[in-house]
């Protein structure tokens, strides 16, 4: 192990800090890359599914979570497996992730696509979120590449866990 602690004149602390747009943000996978990671070699067919009132209610009953969006983009493999993409908001973070679910309704894999943190909260601000529309790994956001290793206390993944529960219930309803 080699470890060297930075030492800096305390005077610098009082100086005004430039507020960066991003505290931290990473793109791990595009939607296409996540499809290949979860269903290697499979041909996936894209579908737009609009959930009916009865389906929404069934998903909410099964997962105990609210369904906010009725229109879903779903990809289906030849064997009936499903691939879904979802986005969850935490207090400080916005996480996009993808799941693969087998035809029997069993969770196959979860991959995080994007992780973004916003400084000082206001993660729900439409202006801030609008920056990500249409951004992919091919046209990535400008990020501070030096920030790679953050040792911060555990960020709870409850929102992602809830999201997965909702998607499993959704798949259950769609696979029926």
């Amino acid at each position, binding site marked *: 192990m080699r470890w060297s602690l930075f030492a800096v004149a305390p005077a610098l602390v009082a100086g005004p800090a430039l507020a960066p747009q991003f505290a931290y943000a990473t793109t791990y996978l595009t939607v296409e890359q996540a499809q290949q990671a979860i269903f290697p070699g499979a041909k996936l067919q894209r579908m737009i599914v609009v959930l009916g009132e009865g389906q929404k209610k069934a998903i909410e009953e099964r997962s105990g979570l609210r369904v906010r969006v009725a229109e879903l983009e779903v990809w289906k493999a030849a064997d009936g497996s499903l691939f879904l993409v979802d986005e969850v908001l935490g207090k400080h973070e916005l996480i996009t992730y993808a799941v693969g679910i087998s035809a029997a309704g069993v969770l196959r894999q979860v991959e995080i696509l994007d992780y973004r943190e916003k400084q*000082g909260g206001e993660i729900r601000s439409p202006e801030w979120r609008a920056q990500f529309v249409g951004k992919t790994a091919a046209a990535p956001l400008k990020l501070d590449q030096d920030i790679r290793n953050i040792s911060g206390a555990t960020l709870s993944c409850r929102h992602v866990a809830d999201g997965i529960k909702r998607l499993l219930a959704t798949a259950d309803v769609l696979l029926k």
Partner: protein
Amino acid sequence: MSCSSSLRRARPLLGTLVEIRAEGGDGLAAALDAAFAEIEACQAYLSAHQPTSDVRRLAATSPGVTLAVNERTWEVLSLALEFAAASDGIFDPTIAPRLAAAAYLPAELAGGEGDWRDLELLPEHRLRLRRPLAVDLGGIAKGYAVDRAVDVLLAHGVAAGCVNAGGDLRLFGSEAETIHLRHPADPTRLLPVGKLADGACATSAPYFARRQSGGRSLSPLVDPRDGSLLPDFDSVTVIAARCVHADALTKVALLLGDAAGPLLARYGAQALRVDPAGRIIALPAAGFIASSPVPSPVPCRLPSRVATGD
């Protein structure tokens, strides 16, 4: 170092986001999958939240009965007992009933009056309880899982990389990289604190876990000396060669303060306390230092078994 190839993936595991970065070597995708599979295995055996885990089986075991557990469970318990003995119970894996009573852990872990001395480890990955007890490996299992995942990546011939389980991280490879800590007053503000190569770093801080109770802010950390939940505390980070040591030592450094010095020295570790103003206090002391966006690295004083400087 050439790193023509590089992969970075994240999955929700261990109750947080686990990120794995791998550089240099063939078959990086297979190496990453295997490393994630190892973390899933650790979670399956060590999690207090999974009803089929060894932690839950142990809580349901009567005193005197011999219980066979997975090799991972046995290893992490033996490390936990090593820290409990070395810290005279300041690190205590048997505070689960207190956390269950505060609803931080499932009710199945609420029973038992035993402490860490009542847990007997036997050969061939078996164990026995002297009194009923429940363990929570939340203070050590993430670090252990990170070390196991790094071992898997190294076995796959990966040259360099990092496994980061929600802030408990270990870097491997020859290049030193900057470590950032979260500012306790605004966790999305990042403080660069130093450069680390081939080592681990873990942080305990209340900013993402605290809750309000009777006008007070309480954390999911128990002081084994009186069973109380700790009120708000400064963020504490430990740098050590192995992540399991860094993870366990954060709790010791948090509860003992300066008195944790000898134990930190024994593991060749350094603790960094970040106060609400973002000031960093190092133990062993490397002077009172502060963070800045343009840091200048200086070697800090560490025990001789740790080489310092780039």
